[in-house]
C-alpha cells in the first residue's frame, strides 16, 4: 500500500476540506490510485462504524451534556460571584476572578470553548466597565479558558485515552497539577500587570457571610468533580458512567439552585454548613472501601436529622433571628427563587435546546473519531508509523531532544488544527515512537493533551481566540497582541511537565495508574507511605 494518502490528506486539509472528509477521502483516493479499492474500500466504512462503537467514547456526549446543563442552569454566574468574593478585592481583581472562575469551571466542564463563551459573556463587559482594555479582557478570558480541558473532566483526554488505550482516570489525575500551575502562573502574571498598569480593585473585601453565601450558592456545582473522580477511583462506575452521572447531577443541580427552598437553606450559613460540611466529608469517605455508598446514605440521612435537631436546640437563637430576617424579606424579591415545580418547569424549558446542541456537537466529534480511527488503521497497515519512527530516530536518539522536537511539532500543529483532530491524527503516529524511546505512555499523553490544548489559544487558528473575538467584539489580531505573555506561561508549564515528569505523574502514581518517574523522591516517598 503506497503512502500517497498521507500527502493527499495534507493537500485536502490545505484547500479547506472538512477534516472528517479529508480523513476518509485521502485513504479512499489512495486506494483507487493503487487499484486496491475493490479489496479495501469496504474496510474504510466498517472501520469508521466500529471506531465509533466504543463504550469509553460515550463519555464525550455525556460530558458535553453536563457542560451545557451547567452553563444554562445559572451555575456559571454563581461561580463568578464566588470567585469575586474570594479575590475580587485585590488589585486587578476582575482579571483574577476570570482566571479563578476558569479553574473552578474546569472541574465541571471539559471544554475551553464553553469556558470562553460562558465566562467571556459575563466578565468581558464587566472588566471593560472597570477600566480594563477590551482586548486585555478578551485575551485573559481566552488564555485562562485552556485550563478547562486540562483540569478533569476533559473531553480531549477522553479522546486521547480512547485512541491510545491509556487509562482515562490516570490521565484525569495527571491533568490536575499542570492545570493548577497554568492557573497560578496566569494569576501571578496578571498580578504583575495589575501593578504596572494600575488596574482597579473590583470590589471591597467580602464579609464572612457574603463569602459563605457565594460559596454555598456554588456548592452544588463544586461537588461535581468529587462525584466524578470519587466514583471512578473507587470503581463504583466507569469513566463513561461517571460522565452520565455528572450529566444527571448537573440537571439536578440546575433545578436545585433555582428553588426557593435551597436559597432559604443557604441564607443562613451556620445552618447550611451544619448540614453540608459533615455531608461533604462523608461523601469523600463514602467513596472509600472503609465506608462505602450504603453506609454513606444511612449515616448521611442520620446526620441530616441530627443537624436539624442541633439547629433547633443548640442554635435556636440564631434560628429565630434567621426566621425573622426571612419574614422581613420582600415577597417580590427576584433572588427568592421558585417553587420546586417552577424550578423543574424552568429547567425543562431549556432542555430541548441543550439536547439538540449536545446531539450536534457529539455527532460532529463522533464521526471525526470514526474517520480518525480509519485513518489510523491506514497509517498502521501502510507501515507509515514504522517508517516515521525510524526516520525520527535517524534525526536524534536523545529522548529529551526528541521530546523537545515533538513539543515544537505539536505546538505548530496546534496553531492550525483543533485539539481533538490533532490528537486523533498525531496520537497514533507519535505515541508509539515516544514509547519506543522509553517515555511513559501516561506522561506523553498528558504532555500532548496540554500542548494541543494550549494550541486552542494560539494564533492564527486558535478556536478560543475566535470565540473570545466573537463574544467581546474585539478583532482577533488585537487579542493576539495581548495574549502572548500568557501563552509564554503556558509554554513554560508544558516544558516543566515535559522535563519534570513528577509534576504531573505523582498523582497518577499515588492512585496506582503509573510508576513514579526516576529520581522523583517525593513521589516515591508518598507511594511508599500509601503502599506501606
Amino acid at each position, binding site marked *: 500500500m503506497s503512502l500517497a494518502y498521507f500527502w493527499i490528506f495534507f493537500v485536502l486539509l490545505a*484547500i479547506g476540506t*472538512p*477534516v472528517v472528509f479529508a480523513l476518509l477521502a485521502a485513504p479512499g483516493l489512495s486506494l483507487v490510485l493503487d487499484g486496491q479499492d475493490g479489496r479495501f474500500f469496504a474496510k*474504510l466504512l466498517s472501520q469508521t462504524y466500529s471506531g465509533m462503537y466504543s463504550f469509553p467514547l460515550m463519555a464525550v456526549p455525556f460530558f458535553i*451534556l453536563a457542560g451545557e446543563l451547567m452553563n444554562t442552569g445559572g451555575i456559571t454566574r454563581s461561580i463568578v460571584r464566588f470567585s469575586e468574593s474570594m479575590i475580587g478585592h485585590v488589585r486587578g481583581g476582575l482579571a483574577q476572578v476570570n482566571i479563578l472562575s476558569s479553574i473552578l469551571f474546569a472541574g465541571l466542564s471539559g471544554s475551553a470553548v464553553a469556558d470562553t463563551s460562558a465566562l467571556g459573556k459575563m466578565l468581558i463587559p464587566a472588566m471593560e466597565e472597570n477600566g480594563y482594555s477590551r482586548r486585555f479582557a478578551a485575551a485573559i478570558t481566552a488564555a485562562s479558558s485552556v485550563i478547562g480541558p486540562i483540569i478533569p473532566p476533559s473531553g480531549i483526554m477522553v479522546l486521547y485515552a480512547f485512541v491510545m488505550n491509556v487509562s482515562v482516570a490516570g490521565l484525569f489525575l495527571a491533568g490536575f497539577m499542570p492545570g493548577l500551575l497554568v492557573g497560578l502562573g496566569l494569576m501571578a502574571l496578571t498580578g504583575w500587570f495589575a501593578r504596572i498598569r494600575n488596574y482597579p480593585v473590583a470590589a471591597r473585601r467580602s464579609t464572612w457571610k457574603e463569602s459563605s453565601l457565594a460559596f454555598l450558592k456554588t456548592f452544588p456545582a463544586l461537588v461535581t468533580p468529587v462525584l466524578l473522580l470519587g466514583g471512578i477511583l473507587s470503581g463504583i462506575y466507569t469513566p463513561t458512567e461517571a460522565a452520565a452521572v455528572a450529566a444527571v447531577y448537573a440537571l439536578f443541580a440546575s433545578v436545585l439552585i433555582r428553588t426557593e427552598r435551597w436559597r432559604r437553606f443557604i441564607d443562613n450559613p451556620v445552618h447550611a454548613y451544619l448540614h453540608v460540611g459533615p455531608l461533604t466529608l462523608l461523601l469523600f469517605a463514602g467513596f472509600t472501601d472503609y465506608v462505602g455508598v450504603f453506609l454513606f446514605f444511612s449515616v448521611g440521612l442520620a446526620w441530616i436529622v441530627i443537624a436539624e435537631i442541633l439547629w433547633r436546640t443548640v442554635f435556636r437563637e440564631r434560628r429565630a433571628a434567621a426566621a425573622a430576617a426571612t419574614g422581613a424579606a420582600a415577597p417580590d424579591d427576584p433572588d427568592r427563587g421558585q417553587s420546586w415545580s417552577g424550578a423543574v418547569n424552568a429547567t425543562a424549558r431549556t432542555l430541548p435546546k441543550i439536547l*439538540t446542541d449536545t*446531539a450536534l456537537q457529539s455527532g460532529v466529534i463522533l464521526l471525526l473519531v470514526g474517520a480518525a480511527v480509519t485513518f489510523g488503521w491506514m497509517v498502521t497497515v501502510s507501515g507509515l508509523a514504522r517508517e516515521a519512527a525510524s526516520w525520527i530516530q535517524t534525526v536524534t536518539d536523545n529522548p529529551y531532544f526528541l521530546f523537545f522536537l515533538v513539543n515544537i511539532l505539536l505546538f505548530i500543529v496546534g496553531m492550525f488544527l*483543533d485539539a481533538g*483532530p490533532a490528537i486523533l491524527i498525531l496520537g497514533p503516529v507519535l505515541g508509539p515512537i515516544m514509547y519506543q524511546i522509553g517515555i511513559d505512555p501516561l506522561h506523553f499523553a498528558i504532555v500532548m493533551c496540554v500542548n494541543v490544548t494550549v494550541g486552542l489559544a494560539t494564533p492564527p*487558528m486558535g478556536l478560543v481566540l475566535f470565540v473570545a473575538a466573537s463574544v467581546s467584539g474585539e478583532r482577533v489580531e488585537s487579542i493576539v497582541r495581548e495574549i502572548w505573555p500568557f501563552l509564554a506561561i503556558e509554554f513554560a508549564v508544558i516544558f516543566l511537565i515535559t522535563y519534570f515528569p513528577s509534576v504531573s505523574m505523582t498523582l497518577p502514581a499515588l492512585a496506582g495508574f503509573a510508576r513514579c518517574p526516576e529520581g522523583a523522591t517525593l513521589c516515591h516517598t508518598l507511594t511508599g507511605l500509601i503502599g506501606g
Partner: protein
Amino acid sequence: MSAAMHVLNGLGRINHLVGRTGIVLGSVLIAIMTSVVIAGVFFRYVLNNSLSWAEDVSLIMMVTTAFLVAPFAYRSGANVAIEILAEMLPKVLMRVTRLIINALVLWLLYRFFLESLVLIERGWAIRVNTVPIPWAYPYMMVPVAFIAMAAVGIELLARDIYGIATQSDDADLPHQAPREPE
C-alpha cells in the same frame, strides 16, 4: 435565473427539514442513552443485577446519533476545517475550490453508500451480542445518512455553480458566503 433559485430554495428547504429531523431524533436518543447508562449503574450497583443489554443498546444509539446529525452538520458547516488558505483566494477561486471539495465528498458518499448496502447484507447474518436483533437493523441508518448527506452535497454544489454563473452571493447559505478580506 429565478427558476434555478426556486429549485435551489426548494432543495434547501427539504435538506433543512431532513437535517432538523435528524437533530431532533439525535437529541431524543441522547436523552434515552443517558437514562439507559444511569439505569445500568443503578441495576448493577444497587440491585446487584446488571443490565447486559444496556451497553450495546446505548452504543447503537450513540452511533446512530452521529449518522443522524451528519447531514445537518455538513449543511451548517459545523465540521472542523482549516480555511485559512481558502479564504485568501479570490471569490471565484474560492468557489471553484469548494466545488472540488463537495464533488469529492459526493464521490466518497457514493462509494460509502454502495459499501453500506453490502454492510447491511452481511449484517443479516450477524447478531448484536446482547440484543436479539441482527446487525442489519442498526446498519440501516448508514445508507440513509449518506443519501441525506448527498442531497446536501448536491445543494452546496448547485449553490456555488449559481454563484459563479451569476457572480452573486444570493444563493449562499449564511456560513458559506465568501467574506471580503478585512
